[in-house]
């Protein structure tokens, strides 16, 4: 069974910095390395994408993916930080994992992140909202 040590050995050069906790591995990857890391987690290790969390910080926007390795209960969480707050862009992982379609659409409309290569870049939650909400999770933290 592929474990954390094997993952670090194979993907170590793509990991910038990380936090290793009990059962949780949070690590930062560059946007251009995301596909390789996701493919390794999903196809090679058989991880399941639980969901992804996007948030705005002082440094920029970040997207944190949560991959669950169910046989071991270990979580692998690649984090991508985008410093360009005006036009944050990231490669979509939906072409690799169908289950990422909704969460990427949600992150896009809530924080204004563009997911390049997304097969259906439409609003998910606020398409017909009467107030026409624009990036509602960023309004309280203007850049």
């Amino acid at each position: 069974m592929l474990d954390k040590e094997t993952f670090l050995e194979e993907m170590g050069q793509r990991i910038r910095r990380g936090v290793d906790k009990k059962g949780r591995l949070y690590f930062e990857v560059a946007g251009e390395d995301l596909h390789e890391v996701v493919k390794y987690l999903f196809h090679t290790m058989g991880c399941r994408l639980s969901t992804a969390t996007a948030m705005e910080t002082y440094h920029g926007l970040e997207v944190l993916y949560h991959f669950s390795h169910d046989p071991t209960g270990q979580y692998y969480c690649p984090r991508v930080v985008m410093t360009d707050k005006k036009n944050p862009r990231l490669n979509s992982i939906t072409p690799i994992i169908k289950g990422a379609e909704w969460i990427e659409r949600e992150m896009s409309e809530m924080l204004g992140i563009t997911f390049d290569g997304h097969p259906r870049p439409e609003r998910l939650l606020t398409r017909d909202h009467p107030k026409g909400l624009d990036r509602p999770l960023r309004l309280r933290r203007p850049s």
Partner: protein
Amino acid sequence: MIKTVIPVGPFHPLLEEAEYFTLTVDGETVVDIDLDIGWMHRGHEYLSEGKTFTQSIYLVERICGICSTSHPLACSHAIEDVDNIEIPPRAAYIRTLVGELERIHSHLLWLGLAGHFIGYDTLWMWAWRYREPVLQMFEKISGNRNHYGMLRVGGVGRDVDPDSISGLLGILDEVWRKIEMVARAAGDDPVLKARLKGVGVLPKQAAVDYCAVGPTARASGVPVDVRKDEPTDAYGLVEFEKIVLQNGDVYDKLVVRLLETLESIKIVRQCLEKLKTAPGAILNDVKEISAGEGIGRYEAPRGEVFHYVRTDGTNRPIRHKVRAPSYVNIPTFAASCKGIPVADVLITLASVDPCYCCTERAVRMVDSHNLPFRIDLAKLSREKTERIRREIHG
């Protein structure tokens, strides 16, 4: 070829949340399905950032009325995960007890509704009748039939009175006998088999691709169960089996839930026995949560509930992400509903587990000339069940 579009929703009695499905049918066969959500965006994630950790637990308890202890459990796990906080053994047993009782009543609720949707009202009345004692157990344990308010960071807020345990075990024995009878009857019923076997099949690969969870995934041969994969609370201290079936149809989803209900009763019995003698406190004194991030999850009746919190050392989360199991299970309809007859759509949509009400719902149908007329999906489903019943019993 004339294709017809049938809108289902956005407010539909079969769906636990308000969702809007657009079915494209060619004659009797569904050729495409599209989904539109966002009808009940309540801003829980944003609201939680303005509340203390304890208040957040109460807030997320209101996300779902049926699994109202799964979200607080996942939320508590996430907050505790920031600092790897341990909870007392007695609290662990109480958490597991409440979580499993919830699974029993939720699965029985679904079983009853599934019977009702296909026109098998005997199953509906049985299942809901035997769900009632479980709710009474909740009332004895927490004071409420729903929204139990038991969870705290570091344990639970209310103990189980050791004097009440023998009474609870008595109710549980009665529930076990009845559910076992229902499980055997449903498992042997030729009408149920004829109506549900091979209907709305979700292939294993599709379940993996859509990252499905819970009974929806386990009925398709994907062995994902948080209780076994990452045992928290008392799940590492009790014995039970993970139920995994292979066919992925509605019948297997029904069987998974029935067998899981029996496993849950076994877990509840073990927890109650332990609570007779398990010593100690029910709540660790947690003074503060340091800056960091934590992931918490729990195997809700419908599948994995996922919570993520980011903290900055204050008493509030600066980010609180919530992902309910329906969020990943509903998109699987794109795989399970294509190519099936319209009469089977109802039970296939319901098979991931609906929540509310049992009102009839007539949907608006638009033909190729955009002229609306009405069709009753529930009626179609019941007619099919009746036809099968006549064919079997003559």
